[in-house]
């Protein structure tokens, strides 16, 4: 290895010669890319044969033309450079026995342009928005699919006309059906593939799996009886909406695909195989059903996803706002402690020094009164700064801080239980906050004559219970102390419960995750 390196470094021409053979194979033509072409060609050809075999595709048009979805999805996820795979697949799939070769080649060019246009547009859309989980992304994807299929629906019939397989008069009609069938194929497969190509991997707990199974059974059953003409096809809509809400993009796209598969299977079973020019009204009805089903489900999924994202963002910004307010409180407490409080203490000390020199009774009384008032101001300031942030906790611990709160309450407070070991400062601060807020709430609104407090610590949590014998009927209105308390507890991953039956009293229970030392 080292010797080889020496030779190539020392001997310039040799190095060039060594690299020579590799340079004849273009960089874009790698083994994995070749396999990609083969894979795409097989998938494309396979989906076309599948359509012919089950009779929902004909040589010219189809109820659902799956290859467009397969090709567009592959190019969207893998990259546009895989286009030769779609070309090979389409050339293989052409039914040369039914249409002239040149017409088939023209049709193939149209089909290739179709998948490339869809993949290009969807990839552009995906650079800015999620194609399934935002309304803009869904709109962009729908636009890409409709535009791409329009290219094929124009190029295909025209080239067939040019080769003599179609009369010019039938072009508008064939184009229309062509477009519908291709759009159905794109709408069914592209979102499905995009939904399943992303991480995370599927994880279904038994309950969810049961729910999914029930949804599959109901959708299958409803689609089947609809396809038999017993009930209208739209009965499946509410179930698909529920699936979109409960299972997101993967569930919704899969459910639509499944429902359509059952309906189309039933249709072809009832009306016979789809063939050239068999444009029965029921085919058009099925195509519209597929379009409406797929589009509604995609929009519903995007709405649900956007709602979820908005909720998460709101919750995150609530926590950010709360954290910012908390930091501001601490800063104010520190400022009070280091600024005004020190100044007042210094004043008290200086006053004490000079009080000794007061000789007249008037002057002595003046000093005594001033010192008394100053002491009161210091106490009030200390209370204030402790109320802003409970630094009293770090000095006294939660148990003593709770005793001090109880001692200051105008309504008699009974301390039923207090923690014996200290917990981590953050959970203690949250517990103290719960105590101050609920006590303040009880004092302001409950009309109670007694309050009972219980603070219990175990290995993993601090639980705080505050109950009063007041009028009850307390509610967590927006911006209220109780709602702020819930937010504070829940932002730490805890739980908060409020029971306040009218006329009986109020009980709040907060459980805060804690590390007890």
């Amino acid at each position, binding site marked *: 290895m080292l010797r080889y390196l020496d030779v190539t470094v020392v001997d310039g021409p040799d190095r060039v010669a060594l690299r020579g053979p590799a340079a004849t194979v273009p960089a874009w033509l790698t083994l994995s890319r070749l396999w990609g072409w083969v894979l795409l060609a097989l998938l494309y050809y396979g989906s076309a044969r599948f359509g012919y075999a089950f009779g929902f595709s004909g040589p010219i048009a189809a109820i659902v033309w799956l290859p467009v979805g397969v090709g567009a999805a592959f190019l969207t996820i893998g990259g546009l450079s895989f286009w030769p795979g779609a070309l090979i697949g389409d050339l293989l799939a052409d039914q040369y026995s039914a249409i002239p070769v040149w017409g088939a080649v023209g049709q193939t060019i149209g089909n290739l342009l179709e998948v490339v246009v869809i993949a290009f547009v969807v990839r552009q859309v995906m650079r800015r928005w999620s194609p399934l989980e935002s309304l803009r992304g869904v709109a962009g994807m729908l636009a890409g699919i409709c535009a791409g299929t329009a290219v094929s629906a124009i190029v295909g019939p025209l080239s067939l006309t040019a080769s003599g397989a179609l009369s010019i008069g039938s072009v508008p009609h064939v184009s229309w059906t062509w477009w519908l069938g291709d759009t159905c194929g794109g709408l069914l497969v592209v979102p499905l593939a995009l939904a399943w190509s992303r991480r995370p991997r599927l994880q279904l707990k038994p309950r969810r799996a049961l729910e999914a199974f029930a949804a599959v059974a109901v959708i299958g059953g409803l689609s089947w009886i609809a396809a038999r003409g017993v009930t209208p096809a739209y009965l499946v809509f509410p179930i698909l909406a529920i699936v979109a809400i409960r299972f997101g993009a993967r569930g919704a796209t899969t459910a639509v695909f499944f429902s359509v598969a059952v309906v189309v299977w039933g249709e072809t079973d009832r009306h016979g195989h789809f063939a050239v020019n068999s444009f029965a009204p029921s085919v058009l009805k099925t195509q519209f059903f597929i379009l409406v089903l797929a589009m509604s489900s995609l929009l519903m999924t995007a709405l649900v996803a956007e709602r979820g994202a908005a909720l998460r963002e709101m919750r995150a910004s609530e926590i950010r706002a709360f954290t910012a307010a908390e930091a501001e409180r601490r800063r104010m407490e520190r400022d009070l402690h280091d600024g005004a409080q020190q100044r007042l203490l*210094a004043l*008290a000390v200086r006053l004490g020094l000079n009080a000794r020199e007061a000789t007249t009774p008037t002057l002595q009384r003046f000093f005594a009164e001033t010192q008394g008032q100053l002491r009161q101001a210091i106490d009030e300031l200390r209370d204030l700064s402790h109320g802003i942030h409970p630094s009293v906790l770090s000095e006294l611990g939660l148990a003593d801080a709770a005793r001090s709160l109880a001692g200051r309450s105008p309504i008699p407070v009974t301390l039923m239980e207090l923690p014996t070991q200290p917990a981590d400062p953050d959970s203690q601060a949250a517990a103290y906050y719960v105590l101050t807020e609920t006590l303040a709430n009880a004092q302001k609104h409950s009309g109670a004559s007694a309050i009972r407090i219980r603070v219990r610590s175990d290995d993993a949590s601090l639980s705080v219970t505050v109950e009063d014998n007041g009028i009850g009927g307390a509610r967590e209105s927006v911006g209220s102390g109780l709602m702020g308390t819930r937010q504070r507890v829940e932002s730490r991953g805890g739980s908060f419960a409020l029971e306040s039956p009218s006329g009986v009293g109020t009980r709040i229970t907060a459980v805060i995750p804690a590390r007890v030392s």
Partner: protein
Amino acid sequence: MLVADDSPVFLEAAVAVVEATPGFAVAATCRSEARAVELAGELRPDLALLDESMSGPDPSEAAAAFAAVSPETYVILVSADPRPFGGTSPLVSKEQLSPAALAELWGQRPASSRECSTGPA
């Protein structure tokens, strides 16, 4: 003696109290615990008046740091907040700081550090 407090306003007041106490004299002042320990090592004062909020959660650590550089220095902690204990050192609340309180705490120092009888320099 040495006076240390991170609040300049209170530091001045504390110096005034020391100067007003007969037999006591301020040798140096500073605004951090680290500097206080450094000065104690250089000046070997008889007494250090130390603001407890400058030090960490355990005031005993501050006393130990002083003992290491200057064993003869007697440490008195002053506190702005009501605090249950000052570790191994005597503690006086800032509002209570007066010449009388200072002299009394000085009088209570353990016998081992009683070498000069009049007052700390």
